[in-house]
């Protein structure tokens, strides 16, 4: 990066089925919190990068209504999209705008109102999350079915079991129960997960993240601006790695790991000069339980095929070797696509600042990362941060 960039404000809305708001109020919830957290007003913001998939809400071009409602007119010239990694795409755009010198203070806001359509419609939109003609049209793929193809292969090659995957769900629900803004706050057992309704074998309802509404906002600033504002605890971006892969899942050639995520991780580690063992806290993209297991492997926290071991040994719990998703993960906190990547930065920022309350992890060197996957590995971003 040409200039050092840090996070100076974060906000996140309540996630869940938000019948009480339109996308404008929903986005404002996190924008307001981020501005207050940074101690800034709209006039301090040079650029707004809006991130939203916007396929499931009535507002197909939601950036202008959000910008108008939040008094951010004249600063919002674009909306970015990278499926489930949309929030990270917004962060990537914002960070590079600051790093390049084209802006000093940039607000990235991610939001999606996903529950405005019914579930079959939502499945049909997610099922197009690959290649319409060659997958959805002919085979009726759904988003869970894509990840199920990975789960089946991981089970066959490495002996990962449905019980192993269930452990990721149990952990997610446990931490979400302590997060007032989480979508699903009930605790579940391995048995609950195994007995839950089949969605796309071997994926069951309780292996799956919910369809959520929500928003998240992060304010980035240049090092110079951070010194000028005398920010107490800036959280520094040490590197953002990215990757991408084929639209057709069959063409990936392997179904036990996400190449895009491995490449994003390698790049983020290289940019930051960190290694997997330096990472004390991580948010990983657990849209389905198998995705959390693969994330451990793709990030180098575990060897290929051994991801489930970390869950069995509790190494990714609070106080473990690397604490993961202590706000409940996508699985239970919720997964509003446009918000997720920025909600991960919110979570890591709160942890690194030691403002995470009941789920505060103890840091030695204050190094963390976010791992955000778009589609079924079509896009990936890994961001290394430190205090």
């Amino acid at each position, binding site marked *: 990066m040409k200039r050092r960039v840090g996070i100076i404000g974060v906000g996140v809305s309540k996630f869940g089925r938000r019948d009480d708001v339109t996308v404008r109020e929903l986005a404002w919830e996190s924008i307001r919190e981020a501005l207050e957290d940074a101690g800034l007003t709209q006039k301090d913001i040079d650029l707004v990068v809006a991130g939203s998939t916007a396929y499931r809400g009535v507002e197909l071009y939601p950036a202008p209504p959000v910008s108008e409602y939040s008094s951010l007119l004249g600063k919002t010239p674009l909306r970015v999209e990278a499926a489930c990694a949309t929030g990270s795409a917004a962060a990537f755009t914002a960070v590079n705008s600051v790093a390049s010198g084209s802006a000093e203070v940039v607000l990235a806001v991610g939001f999606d109102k996903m529950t*405005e359509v019914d579930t*079959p419609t939502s499945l049909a939109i997610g099922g197009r999350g690959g290649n319409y*003609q*060659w*997958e959805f049209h002919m085979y009726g793929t759904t988003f869970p079915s894509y990840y199920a193809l990975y789960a089946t292969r991981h089970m066959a090659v490495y002996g990962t079991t449905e019980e192993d995957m269930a452990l990721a769900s149990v952990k997610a629900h446990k931490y979400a129960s302590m997060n007032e803004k989480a979508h699903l706050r009930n605790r579940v057992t391995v048995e609950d997960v195994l007995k839950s309704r089949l969605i796309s074998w071997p994926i069951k309802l309780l292996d799956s993240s919910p369809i959520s509404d929500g928003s998240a906002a992060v304010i980035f600033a240049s090092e110079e601006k951070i010194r000028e504002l005398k920010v107490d605890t800036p959280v520094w971006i040490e590197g953002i790695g990215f990757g991408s892969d084929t639209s057709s899942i069959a063409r990936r050639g392997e179904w036990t790991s996400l190449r895009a995520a491995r490449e994003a991780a390698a790049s983020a580690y290289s940019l930051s000069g960190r290694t997997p063992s330096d990472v004390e806290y991580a948010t990983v993209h657990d849209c389905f339980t198998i995705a959390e297991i693969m994330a451990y492997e793709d990030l180098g926290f575990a060897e290929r095929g051994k991801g489930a071991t970390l869950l069995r040994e509790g190494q990714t719990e609070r106080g473990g070797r690397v604490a993961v998703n202590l706000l409940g993960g996508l699985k239970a906190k919720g997964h509003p696509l446009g918000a997720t990547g920025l909600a991960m930065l919110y979570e890591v920022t709160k942890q690194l600042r030691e403002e995470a309350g009941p789920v505060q992890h103890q840091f030695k060197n204050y190094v963390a990362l976010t791992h955000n996957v778009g589609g079924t590995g079509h896009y990936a971003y890994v961001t290394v941060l430190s205090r």
Partner: protein
Amino acid sequence: MQAIPLELRYVIPERGYEKFWEGLKKGEIWATKCKRCGSLYYPPQRDCPVCMTSELEWYRLSDRGELMTYTVVKAKPQGYEDREDYTIGIVRTEDGVDLMCWIKGVPRVGSKVRLGTDGDRVVGETA
């Protein structure tokens, strides 16, 4: 309140891929192959971005392969709601091409599959 529904009615082109769609009706699976570098494309492509050429020829794929992975779809999307549960698989053909198909018979990773079509899609039957 109820918002105004948005009905998206799409028409998509078949041009350049007639051979594939006609093949599906006859139980055949066709890929394309670059005449210059030999790259094999499935799904078929009209262009080879490796050598920047549009000189590709049709190549009929083997009807034998191995099941790499699969899933049984229970929660179905719009457009497939009225279907019985179906099994989506990825099969590696003897040509080394990985393709999506529906699987009939008992699925097992590693099982041998005989590939055909049902007129609208590729279907693999496990041995």
